[in-house]
């Protein structure tokens, strides 16, 4: 029976946990692995803690959600409190120890919790003109109004300083606890918008099921056009990815 790696990410709406999960699952799928990603979603369009469940395996994957995560990554003080039930003895626990406020909601991120949001429609292709009528499921949906499907991984980081995570909230009996000041790194060394890419790098280092290159490929698929227009953006994302990866590698 193939091992299933269970990853739970949690954060405030707008921190981009669902984007991280999506890229992770897509990268695993591209690597030929089985992947399952499910967001939690409720009726609230914003506010509240958002959790993403990702499972990766070489074999079959069971229930879409799970009790105990192999890797649990709460990214805000509230998320730390909300995800206690997913921490177990085998859990590698990664949290952001930046000194941020309890919660900050950005109006621009309405809908990011995947309530009724239609994600980009990568499979909706155009029929090939001329040749045998067919549907290509790899071609992007170019003829659609782009604002309906556009996929900037909308992220934000916390800007207002605060007390950060209360150490008393960190579960005691886990395999390993790693703190990464991703929010501070993003803000001070890179750019607030690549906060979630740092986390993505951290996840890759912690899970050890996917090569870092697979994430680069996935980013290229998602943001290729933007990278082409602005190569500095690519560098920034790759740097963030490496930074997150190395921080965790060092701590493991």
């Amino acid at each position: 029976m193939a091992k299933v790696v269970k990853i739970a990410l949690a954060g405030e709406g707008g921190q981009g946990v669902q984007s991280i999960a999506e890229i992770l699952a897509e990268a695993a799928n591209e690597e030929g692995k089985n992947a399952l990603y499910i967001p939690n979603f409720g009726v609230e369009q914003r506010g509240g803690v958002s959790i993403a469940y990702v499972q990766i395996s070489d074999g079959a994957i069971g229930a879409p959600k799970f009790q105990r995560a192999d890797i649990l990554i709460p990214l805000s003080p509230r998320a730390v409190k909300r995800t206690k039930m997913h921490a177990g003895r085998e859990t590698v626990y990664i949290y952001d120890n930046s000194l941020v406020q309890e919660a900050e909601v950005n109006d621009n991120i309405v809908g990011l919790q995947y309530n009724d949001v239609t994600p980009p429609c990568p499979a909706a292709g155009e029929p090939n003109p001329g040749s045998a009528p067919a549907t290509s499921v790899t071609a992007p949906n170019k003829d659609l109004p782009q604002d309906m499907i556009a996929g900037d991984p909308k992220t934000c980081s916390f800007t207002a300083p605060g007390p950060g995570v209360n150490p008393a909230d960190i579960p005691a009996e886990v395999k390993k606890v790693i703190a990464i000041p991703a929010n501070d790194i993003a803000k001070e060394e890179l750019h607030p918008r690549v906060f979630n890419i740092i986390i993505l790098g951290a996840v890759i280092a912690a899970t050890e099921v996917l090569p870092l290159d697979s994430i680069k490929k996935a980013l290229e698929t998602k943001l290729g056009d933007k990278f082409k227009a602005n190569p500095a953006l690519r560098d920034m994302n790759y740097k963030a990815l490496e930074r997150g990866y190395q921080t965790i590698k060092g701590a493991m």
Partner: protein
Amino acid sequence: MAEVSLQGEQRVFMTGNEVVAWAALAAKVDIMYGYPITPQNEIMHYWTRLAPKYGKRFLQTEDEISAGFTMLGGVMTGRKAFTATAGPGNVLMQESAVMAEMMRLPAVFVIQQRGGPSTATVIYAQQETTLTAFGGNGEGHRIVYSTSTHQELFDYTIKAFNAAWTYRFPTFVLGDGYQAKMREPLTIYDPGEKGLELVPTEPMVGENKPGKQFKYLRNTYNTEDELYEVVMDNQRDWDAMAPKVVEWSEKGCEDADIVLVTHGVVSRAALGAYDLLRAQGKKVGVFRPITIRPFPDKQLLAAVQKAKKLLVAESAYGQLLKLVQGALYGAPVEIVPVLRPGIGITTEELVEEYNKL
């Protein structure tokens, strides 16, 4: 306008709602009717993105009652039509579902179950199992497929159209919010290329042929005897059809002391638990009805001949349980329910429940 044709087999990674839209396209559906309700909305979202490219249509109605009845209108003109809903919308759609039962209309409903009763949650449940399978007045007949993976969601959505148009009973694909929103890989394909024939449709009314024989379609009868005949005719058709349509899956039941009985997405947890427990040398089996109606009662009875206990697990408070109890009435096997209304059931929980036995 391009004909729909999915060339070759293609591995894709998408949400269940998107899968349903693609399956409807693969099944060469002509028109979808719908009314927004979470968690089925993206079926409409994807359909409205895909449909116009292939000359397919969509109508957003004023409510689920209308979505159901406009779909019946579409079906009566011989067009392949479907709708999708959930929760309170499923309640409203029962009215059109019973008309489809009585008039033997090949209507297809996709249900993405959410929590209940009332508005409850938009997330997930298996609490619409009874409603979907038996929600009407009278004793109408309907086929209900309960899926557990995206591959099945694709396969059985196509199958639902075929079953509906072959047997002329309304057909339901019973999914849930988890299946609607989660993403996993599956292979989509053109049914024709796989040798899977799409059952042709035919108009019941509205065919413009001079000198045609006009038809009366009705659901009201004047006398008890008239009704009795119609109902019994339907019952006989159903009895003849049921063995051909009933589907289930089982694993390890031959030597199992304990059999896990689940349906839909909870079956994934059961299979996960099966693998873990078998690896420990435990004699466990799994049984899963794929058709909730017709229910595989004989097959279940046969599968649990050697079992001492059944663990019946569902994200509802006893809906699958009642079907199982009915099928096994009098059988010397203890039924242990694991009832979690409106909440997911994980592999770990099932292993825990097993270990408690």
